[in-house]
């Protein structure tokens, strides 16, 4: 009885104010979608860092005229170096194979690069990936070495980019969240105003506070929940369209782990919780001012 009464009040309220309800749902959805995307990126960065920690290699590229003696000296030095875990020589052929594999989605580009364009190199794995610059200093002026480079450079650029995207996403999410909050508060005020007669009668006959307020709070919570659902659907679509299709080459390169379905699924309940809690708190505190006992 009680539940049915309260629910039907909330549904009537949402419908009566349908344009505002839609506006509230859309802003909530955008805000939550951005929040979810930001959260996923954050997890992504952490995972990427962990993944790379074990995989990062320092590449010691050789000059074209590096002699066998130079190579031998380098190998000796690697073997004795306390920073180095192990190392591997990569010939021009191997480099070309790897290159073809890496850019297999752009065959024209691969065809335009000859085997001779790719230098020989040593791929060195470190005991501690943080020691990259120490190693670079040590080897960059060795005989036969053209330059020392690390995936770490590329990776840190990548991190900076993802970080920037993440931060922008969060900032926009926060601004949208403020808009969503204000819309929620406003919707509840309008609802309370349009039902002031009912409310005054309810208070007169002694309806308890939560009984008066719950339909309004529920209204906001339901709209928030719909918003969360849309936001989550948005993330699902993004996963299918962007990650699994458009951006696939980036992920297949193996540098960045793919955002998994399980991550996307996880965001659903989290977004719903955020929506309900925020709507509830907003509703309750708005009503403290507008529906006084």
């Amino acid at each position: 009885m009680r539940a049915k009464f309260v629910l039907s009040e909330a549904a009537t309220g949402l419908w009566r104010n349908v344009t505002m309800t839609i506006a509230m749902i859309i802003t909530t959805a955008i805000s939550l979608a951005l929040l979810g995307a930001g959260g996923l990126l954050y997890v992504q960065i952490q995972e990427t860092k962990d993944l790379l920690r074990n995989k990062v290699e320092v590449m010691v590229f050789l000059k074209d005229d590096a002699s066998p003696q130079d190579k031998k000296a380098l190998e000796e030095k690697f073997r004795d170096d306390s920073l180095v875990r192990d190392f591997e020589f990569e010939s021009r052929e191997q480099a070309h194979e790897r290159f073809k594999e890496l850019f297999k989605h752009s065959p024209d580009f691969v065809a335009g690069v000859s085997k001779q364009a790719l230098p020989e190199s040593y791929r060195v794995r470190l005991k501690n990936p943080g020691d990259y610059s120490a190693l670079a200093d040590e080897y960059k002026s060795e005989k036969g070495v053209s330059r020392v480079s690390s995936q770490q450079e590329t990776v840190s650029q990548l991190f900076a980019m993802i970080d920037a995207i993440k931060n922008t996403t969060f900032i926009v999410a926060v601004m949208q969240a403020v808009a969503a909050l204000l819309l929620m508060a406003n919707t509840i005020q309008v609802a309370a105003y349009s039902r002031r007669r009912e409310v005054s009668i309810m208070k007169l006959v002694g309806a308890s506070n939560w009984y008066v307020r719950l339909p309004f709070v529920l209204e906001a919570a339901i709209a928030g929940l719909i918003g969360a659902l849309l936001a989550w659907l948005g993330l699902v679509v993004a996963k299918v369209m962007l990650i699994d299709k458009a951006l696939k080459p980036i992920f297949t390169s193996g540098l960045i782990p793919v955002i998994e379905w399980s991550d996307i699924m996880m965001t659903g309940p989290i977004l719903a919780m955020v929506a309900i809690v925020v709507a509830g708190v907003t509703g309750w505190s708005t009503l403290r001012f507008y529906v006084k006992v």
Partner: protein
Amino acid sequence: MITLDAVTKMYPKSRRPALDDISVQVEKGEFVFFIGPSGSGKSTFIKLLLREEVPTQGKVWIAGKDLAAIRSWKVPQLRRSIGCVFQDFRLLPNKTAAENVAFALEVIGKTRPVIRRIVPEVLSLVGLEGKENRYPNELSGGEQQRVAVARAFVNRPLVLLADEPTGNLDPDTSIEIMRLLDRINRTGTTVVMVTHDANIVNQMRRRVVELDRGRVVRDQNRGVYG
């Protein structure tokens, strides 16, 4: 039943108190008229009883409870023991007579079987048999006020507050409503009625408390409007 002990009420933006050191006692089962011109403090008196306002000084007691000491979340409990009738009926236009009465029961959490039993009873008590499913705009003013009385009385309150209940009604209809209030009073319910209606006060010959500028200027048993 109702005690006002040296009550003064000042509103923040007014220089003169709305109620100025008044002390009144209403016994259980009494029928009291509060009369007086506009601005005499009648509305403030009603607001104090409903605890929409609290006195600046002094104390208000209803059924042995100090209203100022009631916590705000317990105010609804207090209001369940007070029935209210107003000049403008305050019915919900989109609900039928029966639904309006049922609404008062629903919002205090009464179960459906109880509501289905009590609502027809109280509607027949106020003489609205056969009109349960009419909407307020299909009822006359007197009938609408009967619905309001039914809603106020359906919880068997200790006190029935009537704020100019006949203010919008013609003399004959007013008398019918007064008969109804009288019958309710005979069931033991204390009735407090605020009014301007001299005819009614003179006919009923009940206790009259006259207010003027926030003071009690007359308190007379079996009084007239004066």
